[in-house]
């Protein structure tokens, strides 16, 4: 088939040692009309410095309001291959574990019905299948479904939950992130496929405070593995680290964010009451330090990227929750939060924005969450204390 459009500007992006997206699209263009016209339209956009995509509208599969993102060209006469170029989000398995056979299946289906171009994974965590026509949506959905796949979330819905690899591959994970993510995915199937909220809602599950999936910045609700009780210390292993050249004072004690550690050259001491469980010392001295024995999760709420208003980071709403099946305490909390959001949230207002607008004390009171010092987000910057009438002794 070959490329039918001249692309001097795009060709420039093939130079250099790293893989080029232009090269990949050109490979797809050898057998895909979509990819051919994608190159043409992109070249035009580069030339004119303006996008030629429109998105949204009326497109999807029957019964679902999520999983398909409508994408149209505004120059369809010039590039008919991308007149429709819809994106499909396919629900990824927990921790992004696939067999090579499963990936081949997905690729075969996509070569048959779509552009042959994929995005592993999109920033949402889904398998992204880039570019197909409206009339292909139902057939591709049927074929993916028959092989056990389902569409993920999009629009004002629960987005496909995602997590780090957790206990499947990591020694630090305090919770079974994969099982939790799998359970949340099944529990909220309706909320994922049928958008019912003021705006999107994302869950991300991290096994520990290192937070490899950056849940604290990327999820409306972040579930981060933690522990109760004292950090377990093996003093002989601490000494072994020191003997091997680690500067315990500089690399561990002085980098502790709460200053709760001390080292006299022979013994490492931790004031566990002041520890905020950041995992720094444990990650640096994995053989010497271990989290306490009682495992659970800290639940945080509110982060988002700056789409409608500015970016937010999540803040703590539950310092410690046991995360064990059937996760009743967790689902009860989520239901109460959603009810509040549904009642007061404006159109396209994320939960974090609503809390900022109405105030954290009101959120805690109406959702029924007990205040806790761990919820104070910026202790040195909060200029006011807010007291309710009943707090004041008259």
């Amino acid at each position, binding site marked *: 088939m070959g490329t039918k459009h001249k692309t001097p500007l795009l060709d420039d992006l093939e130079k250099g040692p790293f893989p080029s997206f232009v090269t990949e699209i050109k490979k797809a263009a050898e057998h895909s009309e979509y990819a051919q016209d994608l190159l043409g339209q992109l070249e035009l956009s580069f030339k004119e410095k303006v996008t030629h995509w429109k998105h949204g509208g*009326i497109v999807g599969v*029957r019964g679902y309001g999520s999983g398909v993102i409508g994408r149209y060209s505004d120059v369809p006469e010039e590039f008919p291959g991308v007149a429709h170029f819809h994106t499909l989000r396919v629900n990824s398995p927990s921790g992004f574990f696939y067999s090579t056979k499963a990936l081949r299946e997905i690729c075969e289906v996509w070569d048959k019905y779509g552009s042959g171009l994929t995005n592993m994974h999109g920033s949402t965590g889904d398998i992204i299948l880039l570019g197909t026509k409206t009339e292909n949506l139902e057939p591709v959905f049927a074929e993916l479904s028959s092989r056990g796949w389902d569409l993920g979330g999009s*629009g*004002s819905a629960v987005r496909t939950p995602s997590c780090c690899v957790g206990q499947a591959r990591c020694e630090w994970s305090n919770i079974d992130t994969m099982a939790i993510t799998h359970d949340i995915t099944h529990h909220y199937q309706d909320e994922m496929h049928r*958008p*019912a909220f003021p705006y999107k809602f994302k869950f991300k599950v991290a096994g520990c405070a290192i937070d490899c999936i950056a849940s604290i910045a990327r999820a409306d609700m972040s579930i981060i593995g933690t522990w109760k009780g004292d950090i377990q210390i093996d003093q002989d292993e601490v000494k072994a680290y020191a003997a091997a050249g680690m500067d315990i004072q500089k690399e561990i004690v002085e980098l502790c964010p709460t200053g709760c550690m001390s080292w006299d050259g022979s013994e490492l001491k931790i004031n566990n009451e002041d520890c905020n469980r950041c995992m720094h010392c444990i990650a640096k001295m994995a053989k010497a330090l271990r989290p306490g024995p009682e495992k659970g999760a800290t639940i945080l709420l509110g982060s988002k990227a700056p789409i409608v208003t500015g970016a937010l980071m999540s803040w703590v709403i539950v310092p410690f929750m046991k995360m064990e099946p059937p996760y009743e305490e967790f689902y009860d909390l989520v239901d109460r939060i959603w009810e509040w959001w549904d009642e007061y949230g404006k159109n396209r207002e994320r939960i974090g924005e609503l809390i900022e607008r109405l105030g954290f004390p009101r959120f805690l009171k109406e959702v029924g969450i007990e205040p806790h010092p761990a919820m104070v987000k910026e202790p040195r910057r909060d200029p006011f204390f807010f007291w309710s009438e009943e707090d004041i002794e008259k």
Partner: protein
Amino acid sequence: MEREELKKIIYELVEKSMGKKKLKQSDILKKVSAEHGVDKGEVKAALRELMDAGKLIFTYFGGSYVEIPPKEE
């Protein structure tokens, strides 16, 4: 309330709002539940049947809305 009657109420609500205000699923649940004294869960189930039958669809214009599908030419 009979399921079919509930579905008719929902459909008419969406129909009347077309061209004036885009309704979100939660708008429909709240309004029908409040005006007809029906549990939100029942309204949701009726809405889902309308969706599955293709009588109503979800659309996306910044947020997700419930609308009547365009007539095929």
